[in-house]
């Protein structure tokens, strides 16, 4: 069976599970909102300086929220050993990676889009009409970066004793370039001055590099 078809089957499975449980989305949303609320108590976010930094707050909240969703992605494979049956199936492991990657990308992007209006409310951030596309592009490419690296590292971390610690520990430092780029592009989309073109290019390169790396090494992460 072709790699893409395998990806399709795995994607279907993850989407159906999420549809029934809404675990990944609800966990990441609640945690994201909570983090934004805590920022409000920890700092005075209604000053012009803080408004300039708003993009940073958003991505910090998202980084932690996203980690929960990514952890769940492979926790459900471990639970009753289904992941083992999946790893044993005569399919291309790259297809399994792509399926889970797309599912995670979708969940992360959805989290961002739902968090956005809440974020704009809490931080009193305006959105200029002509930069909306840039904001969407920033979310799309940023969540892709998180999904690409997070899917790979989640598969690695789930085999260890301290999987909840190891996932963020492994994946957050790795995703730093994409994080810087995502914050910069979001900041520009929200009315910032610094040109984002380099950052968009970096995001695209990062995404391509890590999806490719994932495709190539994922089979080693799931072999027994």
């Amino acid at each position: 069976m072709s790699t893409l078809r395998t990806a399709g089957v795995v994607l279907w499975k993850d989407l159906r599970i999420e549809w029934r449980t809404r675990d990944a989305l609800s966990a990441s949303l609640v945690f994201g909102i909570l983090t934004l609320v805590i920022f409000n108590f920890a700092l005075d976010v209604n000053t012009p300086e803080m408004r300039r930094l708003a993009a940073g707050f958003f991505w910090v909240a998202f980084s932690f929220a996203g980690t929960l969703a990514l952890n769940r992605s492979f926790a459900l494979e471990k639970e009753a050993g289904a992941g083992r049956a999946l790893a044993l199936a005569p399919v291309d492991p790259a297809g399994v990676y792509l399926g889970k990657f797309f599912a995670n990308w979708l969940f992360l992007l959805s989290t961002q889009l739902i968090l956005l209006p809440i974020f704009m409310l809490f931080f009193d951030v305006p959105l200029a009409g002509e930069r909306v596309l840039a904001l969407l592009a920033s979310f799309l490419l940023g969540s892709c970066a998180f999904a690409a690296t997070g899917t790979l590292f989640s598969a690695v971390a789930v085999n260890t004793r301290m999987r909840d610690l190891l996932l963020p520990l492994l994946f957050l430092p790795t995703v730093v370039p994409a994080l810087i780029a995502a914050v910069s592009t979001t900041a520009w989309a929200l009315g910032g001055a610094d040109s984002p073109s380099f950052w968009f290019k970096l995001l695209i390169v990062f995404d391509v590099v890590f999806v490719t790396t994932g495709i190539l090494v994922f089979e080693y992460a799931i072999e027994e």
Partner: protein
Amino acid sequence: MTRDRIISRFIDVALLATLAIGMWMVFFYAPIESEMGIVQKIFYVHVPLAWNAFLGFGVVFVSSFRYLATRDPRWDARALAAAEVGVLFTTLVLITGPIWAKPVWGIWWTWDARLTLTLVLWLIYAGYLLLRRYVESPERRAVLAAVVGISGFVDVPLVYFAIRWWRTQHPQPVIGGGSDSGLDPRMAATLWVCAAAFLLLFVALFRRRVAIEQMRRDVDVLRDSAEGSAA
């Protein structure tokens, strides 16, 4: 075995020699920097450590790749050794940086490009070492570590470019005055000698660590077969 000893001896001697020459050059040959004074001399330790740490992580990458291709545990031992020495060197970079920054800039840390890059690298490879600690089975550990060893290194150029551009957009005090910003030729020469010395230090530590790891594994095998035949 004997050939190994000869190589080790040669490396040790070369190391001591270059280290001695390097230190002499640092204190008696290279001119004292006009702005920063004698503190600037940390540069001759700070920069070579960073270069060689980077090299170390390159060795982790190659060893991880070779391990996945051959499944030869010696490559896993090499990856481990390179990562440990690499993390040691990056730790030293992160220590020498602030030691330099404090007298010069008055603050311990400035999110300078090289220091930030080093910090991110430190996190990635400390994560690599921590991962190894939390996997029980040796084969699984080697494979999973190899996956992380490869992804970590693939990330390095991306981290480098991201931080460099970020610092261009938001400049901060630079620790080290940029190793390529118009160096006096005597300083350049001193830097190269020190770089060679630290390279030899890396190699010496790396070889010893690989040997220790190999010995530990040999002991485990012997112990297991001894207990096995006693059972």
